[in-house]
């Protein structure tokens, strides 16, 4: 797959590990969720509400990992100009925005009974919302740009700039106002919750990797299809899609 967009791609084979890994990731997620829910006693203050921790915190972590993947793949694309890096960046952004959206929704669900409000201008919440907007813009640009090569260069530039903004956004919103509780990491909580959170962090990471790999594979198929169609059109065939 060391081709540039101008070469005609062969129809890609599905990586052999993709399907087994997807099944493993799904089963691992189910098992981790079940284990975490069964192991943890209701929290003293939050009761069963605490259990959203096992999806909210891992989602929030993935919301940081996916943009980082977009950033690295974008830098690699501008440097090496290989189509695969562009497709990885696109896949990570598509999957990333799902996790960012999930994090926002779960945060709202948690905030309502805890703080009594659906939304607050808290740094992490606001930063996540801004991240959502930045990557929505990234995907909108991809949707509007028609030329493959141009789209790859432009979205790489946008992906890099967007990621550079993350720390600036976070710091500025934090100085602006702050009421969020201290980040939950395994160190800030009781031992019974730690294992559950750790397991689910890995479960979400596997799901993230699986989904990005799947999107990447689909992008390769789409690209091969376009190449085949173009070839046939040039050869003067009638097109049957």
């Amino acid at each position, binding site marked *: 797959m060391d081709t540039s967009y101008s070469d005609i791609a062969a129809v890609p084979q599905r990586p052999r590990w993709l399907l087994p890994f997807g099944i493993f990731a799904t089963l691992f997620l189910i098992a981790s969720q079940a284990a975490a829910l069964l192991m943890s006693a209701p929290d003293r203050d939050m009761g069963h509400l605490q259990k959203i921790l096992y999806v909210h915190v891992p989602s929030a972590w993935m919301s940081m990992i996916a943009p980082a993947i977009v950033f690295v793949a974008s830098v690699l694309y501008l440097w090496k100009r290989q189509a695969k890096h562009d497709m990885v960046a696109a896949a990570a952004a598509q999957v990333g925005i799902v996790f960012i959206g999930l994090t926002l929704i779960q945060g709202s669900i948690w905030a309502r009974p805890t703080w009594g409000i659906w939304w607050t201008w808290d740094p992490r919440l606001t930063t996540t919302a801004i991240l959502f907007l930045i990557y929505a813009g990234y995907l909108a640009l991809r949707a509007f740009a028609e030329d493959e090569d141009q789209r790859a260069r*432009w979205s790489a530039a946008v992906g890099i700039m967007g990621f*550079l903004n993350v720390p600036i956004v976070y710091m500025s919103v934090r100085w602006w106002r702050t009421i969020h509780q201290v980040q939950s990491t395994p160190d800030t909580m009781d031992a019974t919750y730690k294992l559950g959170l750790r397991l689910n962090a890995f479960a979400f990471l596997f799901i993230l990797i699986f989904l990005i790999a799947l999107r990447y594979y689909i992008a390769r198929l789409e690209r091969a299809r376009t190449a085949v169609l173009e070839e046939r059109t040039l050869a003067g065939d009638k097109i049957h899609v």
Partner: protein
Amino acid sequence: MRVGAIVWKDLTAERRTKANFNSVAFLAALILLLFGFALGPDTEALRNVAGGVLWLTVLFSGVLSFNRSYEQELENGALEMLLLYPGDRRSIFLGKLIANLTFVLLVEAVLVPLAAILYDIPIWGVLGPLALVLFLGTFGFVTLGTFYAAMASRLRAREVLLPLLLFPMLIPLLIAAVQATSLILSGDMMVGDAAGGSTLLSGSWLRVIVVFDIVFFVGALYAFEHVIED
């Protein structure tokens, strides 16, 4: 040299018609008035939100000028000629940046006195710090605006796509610029520090603006080559 030529070219084209400047400046005045109507006639309340209103007006009117700076060249194929000239493409970015910066600062020169009258804000005593915040904030705004417009102006959905790409990126700049401006306008930008001296409270927000400006100026300068090539 090359930068200067592009600045001169863009500003001359603008000066000869003035169509863009007149409409953008008029729109800015209009937005300022609309905010006044939306937020009510209470002078005291209006004065408190003046910083936010001023910056939103700058953003909403300024965003219209960026696509324009590429569109004219795209229409008659002049951008391709410009790209054919040998030498560093960064000078195209710098030239456009300076031309756009001049343009938006000129709009602000109309806007700020008008805001001072409409919102009853005393700006005479704080003209220096206010000008500094306006300049630094506008620099960051125009840097990203010029950068994203290089892409958006070449797509069908340019009117929607540019604000969609640009505004989320500008949020930290907006927060910092509004905070600094409000502190300056309210007159208590000085706070005593532990050592007995006084420091500029708006200075910490100014620092955010400067960091923003530097990060994205450098980022845009390097990324521009990849964006502009055909």
